[in-house]
């Protein structure tokens, strides 16, 4: 008991100042997948991205590629597909007020 008391007194303040100030998360935090549309070939096949996504957050149709954060588990497998269309951004301010705000769509043209 006293050990914790001492530790608390000498440890100083560890509380994050968020939201007053910005918070930087440590190295290694995966965050969420972000699409880079310029690295997507409009003529190419996007099937591998759909196959890489286990929970089915990435859906590819004839004309679009859809990333739904509502189904995403942030595993990062899409980011390991060669081509680099997806990268993981260590972003944590992800809350939205509409279901539609979680969707990113890329059109072929």
């Amino acid at each position: 008991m006293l050990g914790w008391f001492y530790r608390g007194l000498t440890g100083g303040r560890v509380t994050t100042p968020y939201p007053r100030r910005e918070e930087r998360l440590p190295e290694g935090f995966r965050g969420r997948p972000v699409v880079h549309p310029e690295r997507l070939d409009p003529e190419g096949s996007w099937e591998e991205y759909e196959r890489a996504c286990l929970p089915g957050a990435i859906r590819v149709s004839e004309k679009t590629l859809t990333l739904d954060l509502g189904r995403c588990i942030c595993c990062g497998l899409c980011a390991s597909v060669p081509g680099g269309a997806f990268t993981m951004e260590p972003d944590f301010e992800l809350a939205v007020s509409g279901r539609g705000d979680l969707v990113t769509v890329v059109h072929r043209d």
Partner: protein
Amino acid sequence: MTREEREVREELAGRVQAFGRSLHIRHVDAGSCGACESEVQALQNPFYDLHRLGLFFTPSPRHADLLLVTGPVTRAMERPLKMAYEAMPDPKVVIAACGPACGGGIYGRSYATLGGVDAVLPVDVYVPGSPPHPLSLLHGILLALGRIEQKIGREEHVAGRVS
């Protein structure tokens, strides 16, 4: 932001005005894996300390202003979740925290799950992530209270071009 979306946001802002600087949160686990619960628990440790912001957890929905739901809502939890929502006095706010609660996540819609909280209740804020970082949850709660801005939104791109 469309006009509809703006109206929805304004309505939410009106609802939360009554809360003032203090909020009581009731958490319901609607069949989640448990990782999100750990992250919710972490909000109470000295690192994130949600009490400094006037936010508290309460065990009874009768005392709660905000319903925090984790899990894809299994079919067995549909009724208890609805009962908890109905037991809360107005005004109330619902947050779907964690990926499965937003859109089904890894479970989707199946024989056992309903694919997200919005199949059962009207959701005001979605917090994706599996599990969401405690700071994501904090962002979500503060977004619901109107104390912080939304950072991401719907995106439309065209392939091959920089957006």
